[in-house]
């Protein structure tokens, strides 16, 4: 259990490629922080710098108040789970888990207790005498987690631990990691490119792009108040619809006119815009697919249905407006009349609308959220 503090951390590779720029972050004791972003955004590099597997080009990393810049991984008191499990193929599961304890020259009795205890928690007791190659992907990942668990380290680092698993197993392991976190009650730093994992696991999410932090916040904060267009697009699936339009201020009220249909920005959002003193201007309007509704109102935005994806509990409708802009609409199947549902086929004309309460307003040039 420990805090982790990164101050001005930078990573420049030998070929002068800058992987991480001035990374500042304080991870509190027992906090679960998730680094998320697309490939090459620097999230794994940052994690590996915390682990000591990559040199730091500039800045400092502190674990529990101690600067660890020049410490070897073994001296940082961390545990790490790798994407490809990194189990030692020539050792049994028991020996894999016991490896770090044996290096510390702990007594065999203690090692036995710790290994069997970890195996019990992870449900791998019956596989202890097997070699890793005789295990399935999920079991291997459990062994990798077990290996990290027995070390009682200050910080638990996880580098895309679920990426190699199939979708079903991934969901199951995700729930298990949440339970594990409750049991271990330690500081976690978790790297993923999957926003669902980030949202469900993290106390706080760090969204990265091109080596820069885009936003740090709780899952609710990054979902409800994305700092810029990148975060807006990255968090939430399917991704947020972005519509280029104009924000107008008339008689103290704000309006937007997407696709020629005038909609009032009502509720808190209108008040917030007024507080910020935002004047009439061009904007990139963001609306999440789940906030767009189908309507029979002919004054709403007319669209043509292109693709209807049946997801089980909901439909993902890909529509395009009269000016050719593509939008995605998420419709819970339970809200649809069975007759209406059958009619939702490619080429069908539909009307969509959304409320002002769920709109996001971005500067089309700087991509920043106007309410930030």
């Amino acid at each position: 259990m420990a805090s982790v503090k990164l101050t001005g951390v930078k990573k420049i590779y030998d070929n002068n490629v800058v992987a991480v720029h001035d990374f500042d972050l304080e991870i509190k004791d027992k906090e679960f922080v998730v680094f998320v972003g697309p490939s090459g955004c620097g999230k794994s590099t940052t994690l590996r710098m915390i682990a000591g597997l990559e040199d730091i080009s500039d800045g400092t990393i502190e674990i529990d108040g101690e600067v660890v810049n020049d410490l070897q991984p073994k001296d940082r008191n961390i545990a790490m789970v790798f994407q490809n499990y990194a189990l030692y193929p020539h050792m049994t599961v028991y020996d894999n888990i016991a490896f770090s304890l044996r290096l510390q020259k702990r007594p065999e009795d203690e090692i036995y207790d710790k290994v069997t205890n970890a195996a019990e928690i992870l449900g791998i007791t019956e596989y202890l005498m097997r070699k890793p190659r005789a295990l399935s992907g999920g079991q291997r990942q459990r062994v990798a987690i077990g290996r990290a668990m027995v070390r009682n380290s200050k910080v638990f680092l996880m580098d895309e631990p679920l990426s190699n698993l199939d979708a079903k197993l991934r969901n199951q392991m995700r729930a298990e990691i949440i339970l594990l976190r409750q049991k271990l009650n330690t500081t976690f730093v978790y790297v993923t490119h999957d926003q669902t994992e980030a949202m469900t696991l993290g106390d706080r999410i760090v969204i990265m792009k091109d080596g820069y932090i885009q936003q740090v916040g709780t899952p609710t904060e990054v979902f409800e108040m994305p700092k810029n267009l990148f975060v807006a697009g990255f968090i939430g699936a399917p991704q947020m619809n972005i519509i280029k339009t104009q924000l107008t201020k008339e008689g103290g009220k704000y309006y937007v006119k997407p696709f020629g249909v005038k909609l009032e920005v009502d509720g808190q959002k209108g008040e917030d815009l007024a507080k910020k003193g935002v004047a009439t201007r061009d904007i990139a309007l963001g609306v999440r697919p789940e906030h767009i509704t189908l309507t029979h109102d002919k004054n709403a935005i007319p669209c043509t249905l292109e693709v209807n994806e049946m997801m089980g509990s909901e439909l993902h409708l890909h529509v395009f407006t009269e000016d050719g802009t593509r939008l995605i609409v998420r419709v819970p199947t339970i809200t649809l009349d069975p007759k209406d549902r059958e009619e939702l086929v490619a080429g069908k004309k539909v009307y969509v609308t959304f409320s002002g309460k769920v709109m996001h307003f971005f500067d089309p040039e700087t991509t920043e959220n106007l309410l930030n």
Partner: protein
Amino acid sequence: MNNEKRHMGMRTLNAVSNTTIHILLVIISIIWIIPFFCIVMQSFRVESTHMVSYVIPHTWGLDNYKNLFAEGSFYPKWYLNTFIIAIFVAVLQTLIVLCMSYTLSRFRFKIRTKLMRFMLILGMFPGMLTLIILYNVLKDLGLTEANSVPGLILVYVASSGMGYYVSKGFFDTIPKSLDEAARVDGATRAQVLYKIIMPLAKPIVIYTILTAFMAPWGDYVFAQYVAHLVPDGYNVAVGLNSWLSLDQIANNYTKFCAGGVLVALPVGILFMCLQKYYVEGVTGGAVKG
């Protein structure tokens, strides 16, 4: 119908090519084995000691083998010299090659690629070019003639780092994340090498030991120059060859054959026991080398 005919045609063609290949292989094997067969036969011939025009001995016996170890014979000394050299070289060269390969496979340092290229080019020059200069250096150090054993060990071990290619190729196939996991688990770089990488690289370690052992075991040219006509400093190859000189061959030919058989024995046994690893080592390194 047509398909069946085509299948039949393919089968006949396969059978013909397989038979041809096997006949060729048998012929090559026979050609290969004839000299060995002759030497073994001659080593058991006791009716005479000079070269004869027949292969199968008229009288069989172990006299030649006994004579090798008779009092006053240099053979045990030569054998011991060769054995000491080969063992030292096998151990030292294996250590150097494995450390070198691990370093070049895992560490990224500024002159890494330049160093690898440099060694590749250097390796293209025949080793014989260094013969004269090496002889002079060893002579200055007092490591020639009767002291040729440490001298030869030095010569064989000195350039062993350059033979890193195969094992580096093998190490490259072992995921780096294993090293990283072990380092996070608390292992030092050295512990990573001998607790994680070495057990996984068993075939290549054995391949390296075998090749490191065999090179000095059968070397003639360097050993001949370094020992320079002092029988105490000979290795087996040089010693045996001295029995083939015009004034000695008449008395020593069958003894020479017996000596040759005993030289081949340990290497043969070693090879048969470790053959599996040897093949794995060569091919394993080649895949991603």
